[in-house]
Structure formats: C-alpha cells, structure tokens
C-alpha cells in the first residue's frame, strides 16, 4: 500500500494534463478549475478515471492553486478534490490498493523575497496548511510541481513535511538552458532536495520531451532518488483554426520510451497531454526493463544557481567573513552593517574562492538575526554556496532553514552534546557537515586518535540517516610553534581518515602558523603538503598571494589545469595589479582629484585621494576637492550640459574618494549632516530617481536610511521613530501613487510632528506638494540635496 515500496520495484505512471480537458468540458475563461471539484465532481472523477484506464497508477488531484493565499475555501476544495480522485480509483479497481492519489501543490503565485514580496516563513505556512488538509483527507502522497524557484521549492517541501507525514515528490520547471527561472541547474536542485529528504525528484511543464533530455541525463547521473518526468506535448499552435500541439501522441510516447531507457522510473505528462498520450506511453515503455535507482556518492553543496562538488578538484573556502582578530569587522557587526559583510564576500568571490564561510558571532549581538540577515544579503548579491559557521545551534538552524540551497555546516565535533544538537538539524534541512576531531577529552595527539573520533561521528550520523558522503572531517591543524609534531600528525590524519572512512577532508589552514613570523609562507607550504595527502577543501584567506600561488601551482603540477591556462591567467592578473598600483601612484601627483571625480573615474579617484591624504588634512580633501568637484558636476546637470549617468558616475567616483578618506580617518567618520529616511511610496516600484538622490545625499555627508520601494506609510513612520531622523524624502512616479504619498505625509504630520518632508518624482508639481502638506518639493536630485542641506540646518 505504501507508495515508497513501489518506487523501488516498479515503474510508476502519473496522469497527464487537466486544464485542456476541463476547457473542452466547458470551463470558462477566468473560472477557477479548483472550484469544479465542488461544482462538477462527476466531470473531475471522469477525467481521473480516463487516466486510470489509460494506465496511470498515480492520479493528481485538481488542486494546483488550492491554497489559503488564492482560495478562501481551500479546505473544502481540497477535501472534495481528494474525494473525487478516490472515487475514480474505487470505480476503477475497487480496493486493490495499486493506484495512488497524489495531492497536487503548485506554486503560491507569488515570488519570494528578495526578488518578490512574499516572506519565506509565510510561504512555508501556506504550504503547511494545504499539506495538513491533504493528510487529513487521506491523500497517499504530495506532489509539489511546476516550481520555477528553488527557494519556493524549499518552502513547499518544509511546509509539506511540517504539515504532514506523507511522501513528497518534487518536480521543477527547467528552461532550454537547463535552468529554473530563478537560476538553479539540475545538480543544485538535486543537492538541495536530497538534503531535505524528499522521496522523488524531477521535472515537468515548459518543454516537450525531446528538449528535456539533457536535463534528464543530469538527473539520472546525479540523483540517488527516483526521477520523475512529465513533459508538455510541445507547444500549441493554430492550424486551420484548430489548436494542435506540435508533439503528437506517437512522438511523445517514443521519446518517453527513450527516457525510460535512461533509467527514469516515474513518467507522466503536463500541458497538452491527454489520456491517449499516457496510454501510448504505458504501451511503449512496457517492454523497457525497470531499473532501481542507484545511490550516488557525490558530495555537493549548492547555492541558488549551482552545486559545488567536494572531492574532485581542491575547493577553496574563503575565511574572511569572520570577526576574529578584525576590529573593523567587529565594528561593522555592532553597527549591523550588512554591506560591509557583503563586500567581504564579493572581494573573495573575485579572488576565485568556491565557497564562503560566514561567521558573524560576537557575544554582544543577536547572532541568530545577524546570521540570517547576512545569509539573505549575501544570497541576493552573489551565487557562491555558503558555509554557515556558528557555535550556536539556534543560529545555525534559523539560517539553514532559509538558506537557498544545500549549505556547508561548520561544525559538529565528537562531543555528545554537539552531536545531539547539530545532527538533527542536518537531517531535517540537509547540508554537508564539517566534523572536527575533538571530543570531551580534547584533540588526540595521534592520527589514530583523531580517526577514532571521526569514526564515532560518522557512526552517529549514519544512525540518524545522514549519509557519509555528506560528512567532511577536519582533523584540526594546531600551531606548529607550540607542538613540533602538529603539522606532521595533521597531515597523517588527513590521509588516514580519508582512507579508512571514505569521507572527505578539510582544514582550517592558517592555524598551523600561529605564533610564527611570515605566516603566509608556512601556510602555503602546509596547504600544498595537505593537498598532496588528499585534502579536499581548505578554509583559507584568498587575499594571500602565497596561498593562491600554492593552489594554482598545485593544479598545474597535478595535471588539473589544461595548458596551464588558469595558472597563466592568475599570474598575469597579479602582474596587472602591481603595474596598476604603480601607474596610479605615479600620476597621482600630476592630475587633480577634482578632474577624476568630474570625469567619473572611480579607481583613479581613489588612488588620487589616497595620495593626497599623505600630505593633506582629510577635511581639507573633502571640502576643497571632493565637494567642489561634485558641485561642478551638479551645476552642469542643472544647466543640462551633464546628463544623469555622468552625474552618477561622478558620484560613485566621489564615493570611492570618500572611502580613502574614511580609511585615513579610521573610525572618526566625517561630520554627519544628519539622518534622512528615503522611500519610494506604497504602490510604486520606480526607484531609479530615489537611488540617485541617495547616492548624492551620502556623498554630501548625510546618513541615509533607505527603505526601498513600495513602502507603506507605517513603515516610514517606524523608520523615523527608530532612527530619530528629522527629514523624510519621498518619491513617486505614477499618477496612481501620489495618493499614497499624501497618506504618508499626513501620517507623519499626525504621528511625528516636526519631521520635515521632502517630496519629488516625475508626476509631482510644486503645487501638488503644497496641497498634500509636504515641507518642500525637489525638482531633481541636485535640488533635493540643496533642500536637504537647508532643512538640516533649521
């Protein structure tokens, strides 16, 4: 009776399309198909029955959009839909128990943050409610299908598992490039979904069966779970006034037989397919021998775009997002400065690391929140997989939950308490686990001792159902300056643990040189030695040239770098950087900083400011160079001799010059002209204008609290209250949203009297600004800066 037993023994057939058949039976445009479960139960049951007769043994309930977000009566609709499907099975086979009802869950219809406006936990809750109803009404499994987004897929799986105990199948939509709409490829989806513990994975919709073949090949190669495939009948086109799909039943079923040959065990159809498509598919695949899905041993971590394999070529994990020994980083954490963290990430990505370690723990901050915020911010800017690094299990759990992909987890160790806390999290959310060879008795002095701890951790993991392929042992490099055996024992441990346990290995390389001069030299030699002993990945500093030299040389010497092209690239990049620095310093004295800013030359502006700061007071650089340069460009803009993009490029160049000033002044930041809250009002998503104002205001010394676009009046008020800002800048570009601007101004007047409002945007006029009671109207970005400066003096 349990469908999981069938999965390993026989090929299963889903049904095909529902929409086209319902339209043929009279479903009107704009009418919700789910409502027909209640209004036309006989028709729904009939369609299910047709598919059963055609050979389907899993039928999908008519509940694609039956969730609490789209339909208030979702509970009744789900109950009716499952009953219709069960009725069809009873009519077809009585109670033999060989056919199954799959409860269908489609996407919410909303995009999750940060791309859209649906919160992750809100999405989980929507799916959880539907899944709960599915189990209550005795569906046999849940099929999550037509998923375009990896993060929403994760929310749906968590919802399905938290709301029910039913088996979960997951089917995503891939495009011709082999990617989901939001970017993930096949390996990334397989890694994430295996980690989440679903029962089958695959793809449906969007493409015809032929176009799906490359993605199917990846699924069959990398997935340890049964694979399901439900293609469209190609694309619809009009032929002599009749609608036809460009893949007919014969062609469809021929390709489906090929797909079965590849090892796909679950077949079905999507848009445009009918019972006839399924009947032919069942017929033609009958003779193809069923193969049980084999377990694969790839160690994958993934981001929202791609998976990184550990165990092939050496993998670099960037260590720079970590406050240990970095006063500036600590300051950034205390200020809640997420941009600082993101920049550290981007810099390491540019240096070529494959994974980023993220450690944002400080005793005096809320680490749970900081780790989650950092993960979200990093994942909106860069596509590297992350290693979540914390000693707090609660921080790890919260971040693992919303992480978009399959993360590395740093770490568990041989202590009972550590395993009790961490292993259940990895079991539930998925992840590759770094296991440290330390336990209640400390770090063993011998390789055998470290192996024993590693073996114990692996055993506990396997008891929990965590596969050994998802364990990376770190045998802990300790300072060689305090124990002369440390380097030797660690290297032995890497080799021994790998050989004996068949797990992957990692090292935090830099520890080895603690207490020694010229640490980079020791680190890079140690790294090269460890790689030679079979080290799979290293947590390291990519800004260290010697480390990167060791890495690139190793690859070239081990035959991993065809024609040494990557080594040559790396070497020439190094030379270019050196030459650039020289050139910039040489010309720094000759040309003026003002010129660089006016021309919008960013790096020259930075280098020139830096050179100038050697001899000149920072405040003088600001007041005599940077501000006059900005003013010059601003005037040009007002006279229309300079256009917006040039204005912005100059602003960015000025901003780089400010970076140099800030670096020189250390923590003594320049005198702030005050705080200002900026927002594009509710209902409006045009934020180019607001962003320009922001860049300029920051350059002129304001602390800008940017609330983004589509911001509710209450959120503006909240920001004013929490920041203490006395000026609010509001932007609106559409006639339909000036009303929202009025609401915001009125709310501020009532709840935060004394706060000044500065409004602007394409549809606004001075008259309208006055009418809605705004303090003043800015006609363009420069005007806004002028007005803000005046307001701040009052």
């Amino acid at each position: 009776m349990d469908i999981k037993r069938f999965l390993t023994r026989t090929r299963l057939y889903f049904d095909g399309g529902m929409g086209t058949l319902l339209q043929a039976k009279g479903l009107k445009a704009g009418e919700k198909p789910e409502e027909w479960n209640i209004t036309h139960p006989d028709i729904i049951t009939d369609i299910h029955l047709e598919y059963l007769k055609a050979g389907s043994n899993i039928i999908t309930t008519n509940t694609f959009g039956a969730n609490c977000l789209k339909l208030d009566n979702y509970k009744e609709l789900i109950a009716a839909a499952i009953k219709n499907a069960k009725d069809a099975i009873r009519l077809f086979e009585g109670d033999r128990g060989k056919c199954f009802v799959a409860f269908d869950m489609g996407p919410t219809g909303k995009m999750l943050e940060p791309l859209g406006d649906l919160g992750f936990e809100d999405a989980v809750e929507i799916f959880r409610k539907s899944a709960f109803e599915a189990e209550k009404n005795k569906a046999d499994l849940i099929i999550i299908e037509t998923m375009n987004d990896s993060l929403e897929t994760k929310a749906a799986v968590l919802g399905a598992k938290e709301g029910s105990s039913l088996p979960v199948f997951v089917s995503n939509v891939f495009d011709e490039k082999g990617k989901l709409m939001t970017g993930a490829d096949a390996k990334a989806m397989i890694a994430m979904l295996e980690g989440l513990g679903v029962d089958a994975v695959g793809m449906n919709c969007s493409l015809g069966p032929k176009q799906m073949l490359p993605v199917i090949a990846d699924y069959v190669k990398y997935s340890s779970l049964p694979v399901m495939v439900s293609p469209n009948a190609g694309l619809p086109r009009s032929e002599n006034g009749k609608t036809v799909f460009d893949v007919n039943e014969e062609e469809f079923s021929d390709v489906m037989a090929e797909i079965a040959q590849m090892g796909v065990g679950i077949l079905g159809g999507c848009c445009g397919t009918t019972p006839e498509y399924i009947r032919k598919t069942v017929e033609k695949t009958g003779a193809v021998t069923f193969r049980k899905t084999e377990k694969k041993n790839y160690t994958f971590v993934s981001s929202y775009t791609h998976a990184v394999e550990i165990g092939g070529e050496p993998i670099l994990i960037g260590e720079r997002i970590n406050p240990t020994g970095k006063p500036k980083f600590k300051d950034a954490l205390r200020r809640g400065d997420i941009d600082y963290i993101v920049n550290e990430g981007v810099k390491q990505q540019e240096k070529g690391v494959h994974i980023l370690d993220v450690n944002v723990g400080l005793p005096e901050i809320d680490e749970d929140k900081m780790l989650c915020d950092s993960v979200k911010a990093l994942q909106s800017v860069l596509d590297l997989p992350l290693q979540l690094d914390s000693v707090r299990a609660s921080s790890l759990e919260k971040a693992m939950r919303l992480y978009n992909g399959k993360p590395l987890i740093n770490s568990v160790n041989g202590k009972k308490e550590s395993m009790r806390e961490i292993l259940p999290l990895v079991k539930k959310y998925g992840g590759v686990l770094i296991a440290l060879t330390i336990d209640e008795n400390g770090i063993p002095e011998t390789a055998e001792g470290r192996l024993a701890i590693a073996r114990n951790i692996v055993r506990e993991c396997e008891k929990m159902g965590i596969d050994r392929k998802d364990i990376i042992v770190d045998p802990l490099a300790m300072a060689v300056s305090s124990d002369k055996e440390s380097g030797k024992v660690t290297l032995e441990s890497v080799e021994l643990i790998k050989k004996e346990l068949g797990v992957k290995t990692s090292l935090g390389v830099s520890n080895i040189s603690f207490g020694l001069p010229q640490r980079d030299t020791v680190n890079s030699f140690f790294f090269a030695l460890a790689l030679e002993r079979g080290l799979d990945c290293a947590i390291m500093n990519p800004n260290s040239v010697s480390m990167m030299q060791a890495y690139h040389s190793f690859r070239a010497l081990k035959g991993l770098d065809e024609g040494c092209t990557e080594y040559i690239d790396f070497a020439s990049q190094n030379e270019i950087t050196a030459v650039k620095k020289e050139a910039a310093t040489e010309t720094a004295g000759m040309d003026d900083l003002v010129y660089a800013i006016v021309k919008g030359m960013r790096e020259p502006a930075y280098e020139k400011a830096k050179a100038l700061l050697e001899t000149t007071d920072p405040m003088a650089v600001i007041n005599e160079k940077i501000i006059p340069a900005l003013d010059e460009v601003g005037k040009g803009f007002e006279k229309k001799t300079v256009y917006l993009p040039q204005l912005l490029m100059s602003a960015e160049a000025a901003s780089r010059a400010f970076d140099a000033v800030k670096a020189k002044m250390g923590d003594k930041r320049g005198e702030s002209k005050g705080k200002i809250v900026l927002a594009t009002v509710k209902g409006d998503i045009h934020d180019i204008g607001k962003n320009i104002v922001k860049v300029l205001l920051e350059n002129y010394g304001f602390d800008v609290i940017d609330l983004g676009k589509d911001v509710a009046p209450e959120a503006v008020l909240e920001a004013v209250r929490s920041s203490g800002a006395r000026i609010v800048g509001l932007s609106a570009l559409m006639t339909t949203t000036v009303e929202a601007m009025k609401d915001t101004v009125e709310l501020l007047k009532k709840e935060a009297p004394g706060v000044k409002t500065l409004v602007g945007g394409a549809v606004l006029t001075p008259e309208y600004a006055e009418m809605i009671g705004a303090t003043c109207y800015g006609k363009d970005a420069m005007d806004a800066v002028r007005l803000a400066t005046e307001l701040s003096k009052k």
Partner: protein
Amino acid sequence: MSDNTVYFASATGAEIECDKRQAYRFMGCRDDGNAGLDALYRECEELVKKEASFKAVWRKSSVLIEGDTVTFDFGKITSAALCKNLEGCTSAYVFAATAGMGVDRLLLRYDKLDSVKAMVISAVGSSAAECWCDIVNGKIADGKKTKPRFSPGYGGVDLRHQREIFDFLEAEKRLGITLTDSYFMVPVKSVTAFIGVVEE
C-alpha cells in the same frame, strides 16, 4: 467556436537586439559620444543578453464596448482611453511577456554593489523587454491589422485587473511571472497588454 488556446513563444538573450537610443532615453540622456558611458552600456548590454530569457503567452478574447466599459472574456474594464483604443474591435489578444528573472538578479546584485551599473542595466532591460514585445506583437498580428498595444496601468486602467489577466493567461504557470501585493510584476521587466484586432 472560440479559440481557447494560450499561445507561447520564447527567445534567448542573444536573439534580441537592444535599442541603444531607447535605452539612453530611459536613462534620461542622449548618446553624446561619452566613451565611459558607452563602455558601460556595452558591458551592461552583454550582461543582460547573457542573463535574460524571453517568454510570452497570448490568448484571444472577445471584446464588447459599452460606454466607458470594455467586456472581455475574463471580466469588465472601465477606461475611456482603452475604449478609444479598441474602438471598432470585436476581439483582442491579451498578452504577457517577460525578459526573465536573470535581469532581476542583476539588479539585486548591482543595487548593492554599483548603482550606476544598476541604472544602466535597468534601462537596457526595459529596452530589451520592449524589443521582445515588438517581436511578440508581430507574431500575434501575423499579417492582420491590429491596434497599437495598450497596457494596464496606463490610461486609467486599474492595475488590479492584472489579477484577472494573469488568471486568463495562466501567466504564473506558463511564464513564472508573479504579482506583488501592489499588483506589480516580478520579474520587473515584464509587460501585459491588449492588442485589438481590426475587422477587415
């Protein structure tokens, strides 16, 4: 019998020609030979072409105009401007087109890292979406005489109607486009529109 078919088309970034003059106009400037900006434009155009994935769906609806109100198969819309646009038509195509989520990803990244680049990418993305709409418009018209396309949000057509248009086209399922609480589309470089069919 009415044609219920929802038609579909797609193209890769490489297949779409961006209109540089239009993109400059979106940025609020004209091409005056500024080499720095030109280099930036070309860099952003390449990024957009690499990341964009164009898709569109369309479906025919009957049209009945009474006073200021148009009745479509999916519901009624009140707008004098739309009535004027569809004047004399008894049917129209409703379409949705998108440049895909890759452009949103780029915008998200560069909003944080480089606001000038974000602005140029946004302009290039808008221009690319417009070019794609022109191509789709051509496929829809297919030699027939049609009215200029008309999008919700303009001419007093309330954005709330996006919900009905989305359901009519199954835009979420077929294109992956979604609506926010304020009825804006995600991916942001997406367009919905009506194209009236002129009776011969």
